[in-house]
């Protein structure tokens, strides 16, 4: 792959490594993220997929991938990746596979596995400096089973198990992963495919864990129109709700800072999961708290709103 940065959507790779015909919902933000990630990763990959919505991608006898796919339980995808990586390394060392046929090992999980159940096995894999990619498609709840609250669910979001809105705040997975000082760690968004593509280009030069978290709109879970998926992913970034950033060995830098932040309300009011903040009466206190949390985040980095 050339090292020249990608400048516009017209420069994105033409090749498609994720094919249609999957069972994912119409307007799935996770599918859009994955499509762009696989364009950058190419077809020589092994996907190690923890249980979640993307379980549905490969349903016998159909697969949307050109590459291999291994299915694991929710807690252990990074452990599965370790086994695959070790097997490949042994085959390479014994000369049983050509170095050109080497595969990238890619863990793919939702936020349930990444933030909750699989956190310890991920921590272990990062600590062991396992050479792998990790893509977390984060729709901020357990979407596969009907949208129950996860550690990733943001404050005030309604889920099946928090019908009045979640009382606690979203877990900072980026911060937790970053405390391991991995070679490369980034947040991405399907609404910023050029930023996403360049992050994969940058990650490629490092050996060891390369970790990505993508906030993805989920039409059935968020109670939004499928056609608004892209718009919402963009609003999340433009309001400062989802910060696009990267970290190299623990040093964090923002890759995109909106010139003028939009009020976070613009993002919230589009979504059914936050509708209780607006009707039948406006809940000023909770709305104010969400905006405050966004402000506090950016102030910490000296980026004033």
């Amino acid at each position: 792959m050339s090292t020249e940065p990608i400048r516009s959507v017209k420069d994105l790779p033409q090749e498609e490594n994720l094919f249609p015909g999957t069972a994912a919902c119409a307007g799935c933000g996770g599918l859009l993220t994955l499509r762009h990630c696989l364009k950058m990763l190419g077809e020589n990959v092994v996907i190690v997929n923890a249980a979640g919505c993307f379980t549905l991608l490969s349903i016998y006898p159909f697969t949307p991938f050109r590459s291999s796919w291994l299915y694991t339980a929710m807690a252990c995808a990074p452990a599965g990746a370790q086994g695959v990586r070790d097997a490949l390394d042994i085959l390479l060392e014994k000369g049983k596979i050509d170095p050109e046929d080497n595969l990238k090992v890619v863990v793919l999980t939702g936020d349930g596995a990444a933030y909750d159940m699989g956190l310890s096995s991920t921590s272990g894999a990062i600590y062991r400096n396992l050479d792998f990619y990790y893509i977390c498609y984060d729709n901020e709840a357990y979407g596969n089973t009907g949208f129950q609250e996860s550690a990733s669910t943001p404050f005030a979001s309604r889920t099946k198990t928090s019908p009045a809105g979640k009382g606690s705040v979203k877990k900072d997975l980026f911060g937790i992963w970053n405390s391991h000082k991995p070679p490369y760690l980034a947040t991405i968004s399907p609404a910023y495919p050029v930023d996403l593509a360049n992050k994969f280009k940058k990650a490629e030069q490092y050996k060891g864990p390369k970790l990505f978290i993508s906030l993805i709109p989920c039409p059935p879970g968020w109670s939004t129109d499928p056609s608004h998926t892209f718009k919402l992913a963009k609003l999340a970034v433009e309001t400062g709700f989802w910060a696009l950033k990267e970290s190299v060995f623990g040093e964090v830098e923002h890759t995109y800072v909106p010139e003028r932040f939009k009020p976070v309300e613009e993002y919230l009011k589009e979504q059914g999961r936050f509708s209780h903040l607006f009707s039948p009466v406006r809940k000023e206190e909770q709305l104010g708290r969400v905006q405050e949390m966004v402000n506090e985040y950016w102030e910490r980095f000296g980026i004033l709103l």
Partner: protein
Amino acid sequence: MLKLRFHGRGGQGAKVASRTVGTAAFMEGCNVQDFPLYGAERRGAPISAFTRIARGQIMERGVIPDPDVIIVMDHTLLSDPQAAPLSGSNKGGVVFVNTPESPEQLKADYDIDALVITLDLTKIGLDMVGSSILSTLAGAVASRIIGIGEDSLKDAVEKELSGIIADRELLEKNIEAALYCFRSLEPVEMKTLQSEHGKSTVITMPFERARISSPAINAAASSILKQTGNWKVFRPFWDYDVCNKCMICVSRCPEGCISLNEEGFPSVDNEHCKGCLICVEECPKKAIKAVRGPVPDQVEVTGE
């Protein structure tokens, strides 16, 4: 006992339709069961829901293979081999289909023995409620067919929807549309609501060896054999006089099913497009329109 089976697509409201008719029958003093069945799939994928209604006790459990009434909420399901909505339909039964086509046409096209009733629920939903979610409309149609009273239906819609919809105005629109559908049809003389007690049988499941029950897929990109084009109500349609080939629609399609044709204009793979309409929403030139599809009669063929 009356047995109803609903066939719809995920998100279309088959589950709530089954619940609505069940609740309406319950309000008329019947014993009722209702439950949905869906596989590992999602919004847009075929799902079914079942309702059993009886004056006496209902001892039967499980899916209904031989329904008295079949409600098909999406015309395109009729030719879907996995959904197979017509399976188990019989001469004395009723098949309702949401379609603008006539019952005679459907009887001939799909060789249906049962009494066929049709109504364009999607059009009514779009016109009266402003949405293609058809739960209450299909529930109303089913209630009418089996002879439930208007008041019970109205109460059932109110009861079922007030738990889901907070917007009172939307709820009223749903009730109005439900009653419109209800009054558009005639009730059908159905057999009695007495329970039947069949002989009990022991169900045994064969044990599969691990090699069979954990199969490997050895063909790459085989998912394209699965067509998801029927999931949609609207599909994108490009005006090439306005399109400036900016590629935005291509890069924003989650399915990756928009590609460039020989002249470099985007065109959609209609066999896989699920109709999310992100392309319509995002096109900076407003060169893409949403048109009704994929029911053949309503597909515009000009310009393609």
